[in-house]
């Protein structure tokens, strides 16, 4: 079966620095792939290459077997790839519901039709459903900028699901989220994975979160994949431990 996402020998250099240095991996339908690795190992650069934020120096990115290397983020998004960012990236002046409608609207009809159609692009019901799923209904009409950090984080993640994505890339979803919220957050993501059938790639530093959420983990160090396998196996891999402690 064709993998949903495949990276083939990706490279990205900045001057002399090889941030991503020959990364290859595949993500199958419905998988939750964790990407771990010490600071500066090239995870974020890899993400940016996968998402069209950066054009790789060499290598190919395939989405459902089709070459999407260097495709602009907006185009990739319309092909069913959505993402969250490491730092909070909601639209602070819009209400939570408006944030969600925005996240879905560009996928509804043509642009001209949207101008003359309904102001919510027919997405209010879908947005409400998403608010409910992420337990945000009570703050639906508040400006996103005024929400607590954890609520913004949930909203940020919820936005990634508004357009019914095929592939979701989550960049440090657990960062800064307190422990009480973390558990329910993980359950939301799991539910989205099973119910919506979306495939995930997750960069995360919180190992407990990675280990309990992901079905498979790869470890990146110095721009290369050094381990790929079941979460526990990767955690106990000698090379991975080596990479985390330095040489």
């Amino acid at each position, binding site marked *: 079966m064709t993998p949903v996402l495949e990276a083939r020998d990706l490279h990205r250099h900045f001057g002399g620095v090889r941030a991503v240095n020959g990364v290859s991996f595949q993500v199958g339908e419905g998988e939750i792939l964790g990407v771990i690795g010490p600071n500066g190992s090239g995870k974020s650069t890899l993400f940016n290459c996968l998402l069209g934020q950066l054009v790789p120096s060499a290598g190919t990115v395939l989405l459902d077997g089709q070459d999407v290397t260097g495709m602009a*983020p907006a185009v990739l*998004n319309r092909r069913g790839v959505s993402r969250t960012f490491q730092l909070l990236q909601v*639209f602070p002046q819009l209400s939570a519901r408006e944030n969600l*409608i925005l996240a879905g609207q*560009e996928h*509804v009809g043509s*642009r001209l039709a949207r*101008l003359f159609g309904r102001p919510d692009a027919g997405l209010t019901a879908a947005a409400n459903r998403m608010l409910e799923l992420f337990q945000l209904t009570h703050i639906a009409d508040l400006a996103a900028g005024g929400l607590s950090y954890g609520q913004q984080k949930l909203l940020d993640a919820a936005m990634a699901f508004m357009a019914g994505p095929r592939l979701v890339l989550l960049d440090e979803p657990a960062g800064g989220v307190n422990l009480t919220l973390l558990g329910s957050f993980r359950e939301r993501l799991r539910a989205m994975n099973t119910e919506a059938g979306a495939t995930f790639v997750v960069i995360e530093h919180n190992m407990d979160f990675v280990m309990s959420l992901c079905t498979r983990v790869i470890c990146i160090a110095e721009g290369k994949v050094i381990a790929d396998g079941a979460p526990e196996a990767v955690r106990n891999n000698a090379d991975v431990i080596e990479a985390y402690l330095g040489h």
Partner: protein
Amino acid sequence: MSRDHANLAGALGLVAAAAVLGLLTSPYIVYLLSLWAVYTVAATGLNLTLGYAGQISLAQASFVGVGAYTTAILLPHGWPFGATLALGALLCFALGVLLGFPALRVQGHYLAFVTLALATIAFLVFRNEAWITGGIYGIDHIRRPAGFTSGRGYLFLCLIVLALVSFGAWWLLRSPWGRAFIALRENPVRAASLGVVVRDYTLLAFAIGAALGGVAGALFAPLVQYIEPTPFALTLSFSLLLMVVVGGSGSFLGPYLGALVAVLLPEWLRFLKDYYLVTYGTAVILLLIFFPDGLVGLAERVLARGRTVK
């Protein structure tokens, strides 16, 4: 009533109030009200570009100029006013698309400088290309469309256009386009990751804003009946920008209030004789310092306080 509808009602209410006032008052006030309508249209355009989509432009005066010259040049050739207005708006829409391209490369102050430079060049074109614009001598005897020739009549025409513009802008801004413009202002990278095509919306934000500048110009020429390059210099761009910011950048009613202040405050300050513009400018600076969200923001704060007191 939702905030959306309150905005539209507020705008149309102001237009209606201006119409009533126009029926009751002196020709001079009628003229000022017409000017208010013209400025409001131009500032609404800029508010769309700057306030909603977050793209600074110092070229709005040039679009007002293009609209004014288009109407002033074509009216004597027998074109109907409606057609010259539409053509001016269309021309500005096209020029606005071009103006938007620099915004795809640079932002913030750099964009301010590029648009400022383009506005200066546009002014030189108005001044130097006398074969079409009449140069420094300008174009006079611009006639008003039949049925609207009196001062009062022309005010009603301006108010009709303003009402239509208000509805159009309101519709646009509450549509998914408006949401996309705000997304552009607040976080273009995130917007792109949600499928918002940043390039298209940036160009549209400039083009639509410019088109409204053109509409304002088309109204302006027959209002004053004589045009020359000076009113379309950089000073007008600065003034329009200040109207947007004073009213409240990114709030729907901001331009209506900003233009009102710009037209009326100097009149109220007449007792200061010559010093009213200095006073006006100083007042604007103080407002910017203490109420960065403009008059609308100030009003909202006062209302919110009133509510909590109750």
